[in-house]
């Protein structure tokens, strides 16, 4: 669905270890977002990271636009600052759920390509909980000081018609 994320053979034992490691990573990533620790969110990325949220119709047509488009950790930090300090939005609870993790490739440079499905549930005051986004992560992880960090996260959502606004990252 997203160019550059084809699956290639990875040693099954290695893939299993990576899956566990990335599942733990994603669990902590979601916890930071769900607990409103937005200042922690950029720390899941490398300095030169690309982060993009885009509709599946864009991804499939190779259209580059992002609902959110960040080049580099500075832009991620600025988004975190804007959400925390300047943005006006209704109070909400969010739950990010990630599953169906697949290890797509392991490069000679140690870069791990992976894919996972995600769901975001949103609850607004006096309103029912809604399924705010259903999408897929297309990720590349780099290892720095023994720890995996996101060098790329492309969040490609099926939910083409977004309800009103997207405040927190996915």
């Amino acid at each position: 669905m997203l160019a550059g994320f084809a699956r290639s053979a990875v040693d099954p034992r290695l893939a299993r270890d990576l899956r566990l490691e990335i599942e733990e990573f994603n669990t902590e990533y979601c916890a930071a977002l769900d607990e409103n620790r937005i200042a922690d969110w950029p720390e899941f990325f490398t300095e030169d990271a690309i982060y993009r949220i885009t509709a599946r119709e864009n991804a499939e047509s190779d259209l580059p636009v992002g609902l959110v488009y960040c080049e580099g950790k500075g832009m991620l930090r600025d988004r975190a600052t804007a959400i925390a300090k300047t943005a006006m939005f209704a109070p909400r609870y969010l739950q990010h759920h990630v599953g169906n993790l697949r290890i797509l490739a392991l490069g000679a440079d140690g870069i791990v390509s992976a894919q996972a499905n995600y769901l975001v549930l949103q609850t607004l005051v006096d309103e029912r909980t809604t399924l705010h986004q259903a999408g897929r992560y297309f990720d590349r992880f780099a290892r720095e000081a023994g720890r995996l960090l996101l060098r790329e996260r492309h969040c490609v959502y099926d939910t083409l018609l977004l309800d009103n606004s997207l405040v927190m990252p996915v």
Partner: protein
Amino acid sequence: MRGVAMPDSARNEPASEPSPLGYIWPEEGLSRIPDWVYTSDEIYAREIERIFHGRSWNYVALAAEIPRPGDFKRSFVGPTPVVVARGQDGSIHVFENRCAHRGAELCRPYRGTAKEFVCPYHQWTYDLAGNLIGVPFRRGVKGQGGMPSSFKLADHGLAQLAVTTRNGVVFASFAHDMEPLEDYLGPEILTDFDATFDGRPLTILGYYRNTVPANWKMYHENLKDPYHATLLHAYLVTFGLMVAGNKSAMIADRTGRHGTMASAKGEEGVTVDPASKGEMRAFHENLKLADPRILDYVKEFDSPWSVTMQTIWPNLIVQRELNTLGTRQIVPNGPNEFTMIWTMFGYEGDSAEMVRHRLRQGNLMGPAGFLGLEDNEALKFVQDGLRKSRAGAAVVELGGIAEGSSSSLITEAAIRSLYRYWRDVIGV
């Protein structure tokens, strides 16, 4: 429905003519806007009939979305689905997305390329202009059944709309005797429209689609309301994109229906004066961006303005926010909700770095944009207030009773101009 000011018994309309004329405008005039303008199903029905299906040019596409013969896209005129298709001769056709046979919405994908359109239900087939060119078993089988001999294909095409284009922007109308687009827009609006659409071929960068749980007119009003810009959007002021005292203008056309909110980004080192700081509660003095590239302005337009937000009645916003460019198409879904379709674009010949600059700056706008998400949130707050609370009216009195264009940001004159026009069209 809420806010009917007069009991039904007081109406004297003929029963056959559904009319919203039971509604009474507040005696203060255009400095008040009653809730029923935004919440009434009757008013909404009349808006569809008289505005979107009436005498208006409706934005439907950018020509760059359908560059080759046979290319098509789904679009809307008001709430009504249409197809925009390019014929074999290169001309652009707009027709209703509703099979002439049983009414099926036959074109389902957002975009594509076709030789003809076939309704999947009974395979009635239309050409790229919407003309009916085939009906299966039209003559029946073995002399039995089929259409009567009086049935003519030419009488059963898809309903075709009038089409006009200007510098790659495509408009359509259900009225076939519309004035030229240039006259419809007027010179005040055309100047900034042509600064954005200056004839350079466009490249499509992608789409956002979102609903807003608010009346569709509020989106126009939000962009005719420069008062909100430095108050709701703390980001603008905090990071120096728009500061009270920057050169700015709120421009209205002579009818009041269209508008341009324009501002010129200040030079480096522009600071917020102490008196204004005190007025803006959301202002943060000590925040700095880690990556200030998002604020860069590459001057590429023949215009004194670095930002123009144009509201083109009834369904188009043209966004030129520094170097992030887009059209926003309003699709009303009843009085309490509309869909917004954003088409982000650049120009052919943009360098790879210029495209990335546009994408980075795109974080300002859209339903997740630093400014865009706040507009959508605020409009929901307003519609919630109107829908749920006792009937009332908006106070639109900034700038007194003045109407039309203004160089001040602290005015609602352009909103009053819009409602002078709207009341005349709707008849309230």
